[in-house]
């Protein structure tokens, strides 16, 4: 197996809070990698730093064989990292289909001139965008909601739509921030199938999740953050029995 993402010594401080302390981790090509930890451990901060939304104080990333430029989010997306957000961020007043079409922005070209002339190249590109977006809606199982505004979708469907939009950017690594949050058991089960399907299609997944059953069942390897520090990185079976992890989760009843 080859390494897809390597994070080295990532630190991030918010005033007095050390949200990330020298976090290093490696994610292998094709695996589902879990990132867990108590509330406020720094998981989302790690995503924000990785995706260029929030600058790191120190440390660097290596992605797909080259250094990753995290100075702007669109560069990270172009390099092949897509993400979803813990507190769902959709384009609320665009249709579900349009949301996914926006995800194709990066991989398409048409500019002002093309848009105004609507020449053959632009028309075929637009058709391709719409076709791919529809495929992705289908893939995540909400194709019948394509024309609905994103804000009118159910919570579970919004999470799926966010995944479809992220997939539209053609990522090598998909980073999901608590995708099962707020989902009922049925929805979570379907989500699990979806993520397994993604891995089956060759995608690498970085997963933040509080649903321990989901993480332990799904992930190939898991890292635990606690107060901004990585305390362990191992297969789920080892992680759940590790005393440091049990202590981090207050008495060990959770894991």
């Amino acid at each position, binding site marked *: 197996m080859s390494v897809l993402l390597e994070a080295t010594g990532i630190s991030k401080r918010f005033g007095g809070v050390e949200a990330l302390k020298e976090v290093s981790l490696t994610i292998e090509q094709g695996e589902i990698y879990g990132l867990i930890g108590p509330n406020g451990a720094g998981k989302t901060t790690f995503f924000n730093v990785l995706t260029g939304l929030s600058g790191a104080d120190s440390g660097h990333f290596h992605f797909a064989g080259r250094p990753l430029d995290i100075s*702007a*989010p*669109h560069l990270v997306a172009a390099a092949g990292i897509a993400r979803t957000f813990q507190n769902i961020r959709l384009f609320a*007043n665009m249709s579900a289909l349009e949301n996914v079409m926006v995800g194709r922005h990066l991989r398409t070209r048409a500019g002002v001139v093309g848009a105004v002339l609507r020449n053959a190249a632009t028309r075929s590109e637009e058709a391709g965008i719409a076709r791919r977006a529809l495929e992705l809606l289908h893939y995540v199982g909400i194709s019948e909601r394509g024309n609905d505004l994103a804000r009118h979708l159910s919570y579970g469907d919004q999470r799926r739509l966010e995944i479809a939009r992220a997939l539209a950017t053609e990522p090598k690594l998909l980073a999901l921030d608590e995708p099962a949050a707020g989902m009922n058991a049925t929805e979570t089960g379907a989500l699990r199938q979806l993520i397994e399907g993604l891995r089956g299609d060759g995608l690498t997944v970085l997963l933040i999740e509080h649903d321990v059953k989901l993480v332990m069942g799904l992930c190939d390897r898991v890292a635990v953050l606690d107060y901004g520090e990585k305390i362990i990185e191992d297969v789920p079976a080892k992680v759940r029995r590790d005393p440091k992890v049990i202590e981090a989760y207050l008495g060990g009843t959770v894991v």
Partner: protein
Amino acid sequence: MSVPKRNVRLGIALIAVVLSALPFAVGLGMGNAWVRVLDFALLYIMLALGLNIVVGFAGLLDLGYIAFYAIGAYLYALLASPHFGLHWPAWAVLPLGALVAGLFGILLGAPTLRLRGDYLAIVTLGFGEIIRIFLNNLNSPVNITNGPQGIARIDPIRVFGVPLSKPLEIFGVHLPGVYLYYYLFVLLALGIIFVTVRLEDSRIGRAWVAIREDEIAAKACGINTRNVKLLAFAMGASFGGVAGGLFAGFQEFVSPESFSLMESVMVLCMVVLGGMGHVPGVVLGGLLLAVLPEALRHGAGPVQQMLFGRVLLDPESLRILLFGLALILVMQYRPAGLWPSATRRREFSKPGP
């Protein structure tokens, strides 16, 4: 919902007939002063469409938009008037005005990229005023803009050598200057509508709306928000630049007072009242807000005379008063604007299922 091609053709033909006949109907029915009002309405429609790209599509509240109108107007004035003795043709100056205004759009947009909402509004307001103040004061030590006196005796717009300012006789039909300008402005307004509609339904248009909806998500989706925002500023400004050039050629006079903050506010009201982000709504907003105040200005005096035997409120203050009232009423009862897009109407209604 697909409309048969035949009906589309019929619709286009109908619109063409109405637009061609309009100046005659208005001119013969109400006098040529009203055709002039119509000409100004068309300029305002172009401005509103330009501002709509920035405010309506990309969601960037710009209170200094009139600056681009000013830049287009002054560029025309400087390049086609006795002021510098230059007499460039309109077909060269108008596109140049679009280009220069577009560049200024980028220049003034760049420092505001990190700002949103109120902060953006205040900074753009400042920029708008700075441009106006420059125009007011660039008459010494070197006289560029002729200061508050403005620039007069600007060349009228010529099409194929024919000045639009002079009446024209075609096949026995008498066309006064205001009619000729009307036809030119209609054509250009239609062109701007066409460009806007095409842009709206494109990769670029979707990126603008995505930024309006959630800038962070747009970034994470791989949109280079800096470039896409600057593009919105540039496109919007270029429409303003064209309208400004037309204004200068039409009026044959420009001075800084035509480009006050109140004008920016007016254009913003056209966008918001009409229906932000919805092209037909914005056109309606531009038309209404350009025509209604004139109607009031002309109608308020005589109506009061008739009702009370004398003029109680001077028409100018009444105009502002009613304008404010209309604003409040629309915002209260139609917060998405008079003619919002279907999406936006839902946006302001109760959440759906």
